């Protein structure tokens, strides 16, 4: 193909693979030879004959030389453009190469936010247990019950006592969930650039609380019956507000969109950094 290309504008014909029916015949043959299993041996025999004829014909078309067909080329030197009205994007228009968002929070911010939110939420939950059930362990045990089936059915007395295994399970569930949701905040908050606080403290917690409220009766009806939803919402909003605040206070970093992979993955590769900085289309 290379020499073809070099001939450039004088070129008038192009060689393309010639049309052929042999592959189709072979496909018919294969299908019939299979279909014979559910119909009759005769069909299989016909199928096998077709397949063989198809293979022979097909090979004849590519060996020793591939059959080709010459097609005439009609040259035109214009850059094609639409015949319908399109708002064309011009150079410089609204940052035609824009890669937005320009800045995001570092992942670290999300993790920190998650931990901070998680601590506040845990404190509130313990307060809730003490006020309504006279025991700081009550809420912790309820949380652990999502992972420990026998706890879900336990009576109030058991739930008010300190159970070491439940404490560890609750800690793990709460920790992992807090950090993950914190991370999500870090990623999502730049997406709500107008009212990040409102989004973080109200919208997001209400969304997932609603989801949980609607589905928990199916997922875990026993647990559902034990949850005091007003406290629950309060805890979620506290989490969202604190996590959102911590994330939002962190300084944003530039997205690494323009940088080559080697730089982004932290590989020391001399030459790359300088070159890129020179090229950066900064204003």
């Amino acid at each position, binding site marked *: *193909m290379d020499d073809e*290309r*070099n001939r*450039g*504008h004088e*070129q008038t014909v*192009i060689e*393309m*693979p*010639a049309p*052929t*029916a*042999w*592959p*189709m015949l072979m*496909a*018919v043959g*294969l*299908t019939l030879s*299979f*279909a014979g*299993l*559910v*119909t009759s041996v005769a069909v299989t025999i016909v199928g096998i004959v077709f397949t063989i004829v198809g293979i022979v014909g*097909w090979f004849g*078309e*590519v060996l020793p030389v591939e059959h080709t067909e010459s*097609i005439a*080329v*009609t*040259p*035109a030197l*214009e*850059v*094609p*453009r*639409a*015949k*319908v009205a*399109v*708002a*064309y*994007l*011009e150079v410089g228009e*609204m*940052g*035609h*190469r*824009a*890669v*937005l*968002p320009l800045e995001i929070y570092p992942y670290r911010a999300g993790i920190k936010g998650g931990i901070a939110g998680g601590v506040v939420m845990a404190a509130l939950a313990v307060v809730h247990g003490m006020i309504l059930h006279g025991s700081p362990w009550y809420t912790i045990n309820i949380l652990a019950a999502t992972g420990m089936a026998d706890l879900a059915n336990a009576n109030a007395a058991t739930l008010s006592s300190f159970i070491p295994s439940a404490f560890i399970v609750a800690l793990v569930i709460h920790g992992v969930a807090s950090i993950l949701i914190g991370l999500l905040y870090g*990623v999502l908050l730049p*997406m709500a650039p107008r009212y990040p606080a409102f989004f973080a403290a109200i919208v997001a917690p209400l969304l997932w609380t609603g*989801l949980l409220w609607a*589905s928990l009766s*199916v*997922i*875990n009806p026993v647990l559902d019956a034990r949850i005091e939803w007003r406290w629950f919402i309060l805890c979620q909003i506290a989490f969202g507000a604190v996590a959102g605040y911590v994330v939002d206070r962190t300084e944003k970093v530039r997205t690494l969109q323009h940088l080559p992979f080697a730089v982004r993955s932290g590989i020391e590769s001399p030459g790359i950094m300088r070159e890129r900085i020179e*090229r950066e289309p900064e204003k």
Partner: protein
Amino acid sequence: MAGSIEHRIALSAESDHASLPILGRAHEWVVTVDHKRLGLMYIGGGLVFFLIAGLQAATMRLQLAIPNAGIIAPQVFNRLLTVHGTAMVFLVGMPILTGFLNYLVPLMIGARDLAFPRLNAFGFWLWLFGSLLLYFSYIGGDGLYGAGSAPDVGWFAYAPLTERAFSRGNSTDYWILSILLTSVGSTATAINLLTSIFCMRCEGMTLRKMPVLVWLAAVVSFLMCVVLPPLSAAQAMLLLDRFLGAHFFDTQAGGSAILWQHFFWIFGHPEVYVLVLPAFAFANEIIPVFSRKVIFGYSVMVAASCALAFISLGVWAHHMFSVGMAPAGNAFFAASTMLVSIPTGIKIFNWIGTMWGGKIRFRIPMMFSVGFLAQFLIAGLTGIMLAVAPFDWQLTDTYFVVAHFHYVLIGAIVFMIFAAIYYWFPKATGKMLGERLGKWHFWLFLIGFHMTFDTLHFAGLRGMPRRIYTYQPGRGLDTINLIASIGVIFQAAGILMFLINVIRSLRSGKPAGDDPWDAWTLEWSTSSPPPEYNFAELPVVRSRRPLWDLKHPEDPDWKYE
């Protein structure tokens, strides 16, 4: 600079074929080895099966519209259910999507054809005849070839239900043979795509400059090569069981009932990604063009897709939580399934990043793409819910699952198929699809889709099992099912608008020109429809947006990439 894209020779769309009589033109399609024609034949064939399988779905929904309906017999329902599911996956989703890849990949990599044009034709015909075999089973009928008729064992064909003892006659054999044939055709296509992508890119198109669609085509092809063989192997084993008494899955003779499930789902789950990754690929091309921005996070997008493909290979047993695996098994497959949400989240984030701050043009392809984004997000959320093993124990085999996977299959895949049709139709035919009818199509289909499948989540939560042909009144299911069935009428009306639109445009559509959307990838640099050889001179690219460079030599992209 001879030979670079700036000096490329574009071509007039005219061909002298138009003057041939009808038969002659039909002959041309039959013997063609042109990747574009074969791509269109896949898409056209797939759309025909979409209508048939859609009618079958509508019939099921008609039966389920009211409790205790007796419109169709139980066994007929089972047959509809099986053929609908099988056809939608193997005769609609796969061929339409690979048809698009067939059409687009050579154009996008600046090549004249796929690596093996004749193999491509072979793959198509094998797919078509295999597909016809599935529907032929209806004709095979109870009388003609002994006991038989259409298969009634579900698209997953669980053994030992599919053993001779429980599935008499030949209906299950039709299912096996048909899918075996279409799988061989798909594998051929996958090999063809992989070879072409790695060996036939035009000058300058390094792996890092390929359009994301081409990347995803490679990932999908790889996935097909890995997961179709286990399915074929299992089907060959089942054939041996049924014809030669081999007892692989026959529990009474020491075979395993679970073995089939493992084989099937090690294919079946990644198959979802074989279907959804091309849908992602379309979104990756359409969203930037209609947002007038470069794609956000190109390399992350590619990396996330590769990650998705790999993770999808390790989650199959989340379809088997109710089998009663060891707790460690459940935990592993629940956790690996949840892992999927990370690359998926990244992709959604990047699509939003692409739209952010852009000058968005809400033309039909973009409307379908935005619908896709929202619906795919919801489908992902219900998927994560189902990955929680105890939740799955309660809801598996209920309509919650049916609603979940139709959210993926329709809400994501079918929506993106329509987006792609509206987007590339002008390239393939030289005519625009009508905007007004397109809007009718979009809104009717959107409303109908949500009426049908949003509600069915609740039918599932209320305990409606799937694969039942009717239900009792007064169990809180009546209204839900009625609404779901009415939704189908809206969807059908939407599809009707689409068909009218296509026919009208083919007859008297507005001429599109070569580049109607002001797009940036190579397929728009040839005429519409492209000549047989795609490019008179093979292009040379220097950036990810070769057409931008071509149109704006004063400020080309390659300076910045």
